[in-house]
């Protein structure tokens, strides 16, 4: 890990020194344990604060369209998939960014780590050689880090950057393709059970829009929820409005969501937002044979059609 961090610093220094970029978007150590925070490095001297560890979960592509000048970005597989989509959607220009790609074995969920240590007899958690050691009065147990991987990382199929200018280290083995077994399993439940689960999850939403703000692909100048002419979605937290907001958001992300899980990470009330986005990804793959964020020359699935697209969903009269 430290090896990766130092290589990142080296590449960042090089880019800044040669004037190839004006800013490096990366991570620095977070102010609380088990965290890393996005940071913007504008001069060589500051590159030393760049780090890389398994808490670099944020999708940094989110910041690309907001920085001025040329940007260097430390990018995982999912960050690069977001970059591909953003280039396709003309929000950023490939020539204005320099991608320092980093293969990623998955990021850890600080919130759940912290929750797991809230048992009274625990005194703390330590990171030791790929395992988390839980210490306490009566126990010293080692838990595999995998247990704390973000849900999105569990189904990640692009642990290596899909596009980069330099790659830190070697590529790692990819998981097999995503078969969306979780979506299938959920859809096999009775509709009332699905409804109960979803309304329970969405019911917690406080309409803070952190999900939207964290999403690398939510960049509209005015979000539909803020529209007043007409007011498509009410601003209340009653179920109808909240659910409509999340349905519409999933529709807007259909064929665009790169499944980084940023929305879920950002949610302060731990709503399972991905339950909607995963469904759209599964449909886009199954109906249109499309996977997002892989190829800038591949047209978005909702910007094209095939005359023989499936009509199974239609009324058969």
């Amino acid at each position, binding site marked *: 890990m430290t090896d990766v961090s130092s290589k990142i610093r080296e590449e960042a220094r090089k880019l800044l020194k040669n004037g190839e970029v004006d800013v490096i978007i990366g991570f620095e150590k977070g102010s609380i344990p088990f965290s890393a925070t996005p940071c913007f490095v504008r001069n060589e001297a500051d590159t030393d604060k760049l780090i890389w560890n398994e808490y670099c979960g944020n999708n940094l592509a989110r910041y690309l369209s907001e920085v001025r000048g040329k940007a260097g970005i430390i990018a995982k597989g999912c960050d690069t998939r977001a970059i591909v989509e953003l280039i396709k959607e003309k929000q950023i220009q490939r020539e204005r960014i320099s991608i320092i790609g980093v293969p990623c074995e998955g990021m850890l969920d600080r919130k759940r780590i912290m929750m797991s240590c809230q048992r009274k007899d625990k005194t703390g958690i330590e990171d030791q050689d790929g395992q988390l050691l839980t210490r306490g009065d009566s126990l010293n147990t080692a838990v595999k880090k995998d247990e704390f991987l973000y849900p999105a990382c569990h189904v990640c199929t692009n642990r290596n950057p899909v596009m980069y200018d330099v790659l830190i280290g070697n590529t790692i083995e990819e998981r097999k393709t995503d078969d969306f077994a979780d*979506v299938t399993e*959920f*859809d096999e439940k009775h*509709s*009332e*059970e*699905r*409804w*109960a689960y*979803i*309304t329970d999850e969405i019911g917690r939403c406080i309409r803070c829009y952190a999900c939207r703000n964290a999403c690398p692909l939510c960049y509209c100048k005015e979000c*539909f929820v803020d529209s007043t002419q*007409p007011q*498509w*979605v*009410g601003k209340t937290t*009653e*179920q*109808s*409005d909240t*659910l*409509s907001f999340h*349905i*519409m958001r*999933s*529709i807007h992300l*259909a064929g665009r969501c790169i499944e980084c899980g940023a929305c879920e990470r950002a949610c302060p009330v731990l709503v399972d937002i991905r339950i*909607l986005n995963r*469904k*759209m990804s599964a*449909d*886009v793959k199954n*109906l*249109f044979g499309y996977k997002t964020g892989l190829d800038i020359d591949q047209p978005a*699935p*909702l*910007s*094209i*059609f*095939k*005359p023989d*697209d*499936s*009509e199974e*969903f*239609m*009324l058969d*009269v």
Partner: protein
Amino acid sequence: MGKIDTNWEPRIIAFLCNWCSYAGADLAGVGRMQYPANVRVIRVPCSGRISPFFILSSLQNGADGVLVSGCHPGDCHYLTGNYSARRKFALLKSQLEHIGIEKERVQFTWVSASEGGKFAEVINRVTETVRALGPAKKLVKKCL
């Protein structure tokens, strides 16, 4: 379940494209084909004009069912509007079903300008399935 309102009639919003389905609906009239009076038609230029918002808003505002109908593939007055719409509709319908909304509440079909009979048949089918489902409860705004 609450008390059953015996006078309850489903209310269905139908979005029809101007060139085929609206004309098909007119033709059903010309042929005096009788069908239930539960549908309120909104004419749009093309099925491609129909945003998923239209459908969600209909449900939010109290419609018990939504019907969307356009020109058959290949017949679109605007060449390809129905093709691009079809992809959007497929996703919306699937998502609504995923979250547990009764799948029969929102229906999509193609009715051509010469298919008056099919239009009447579609309205019959949609009205009866929505009637069987009962009043829409999910997604409807509470303040109604």
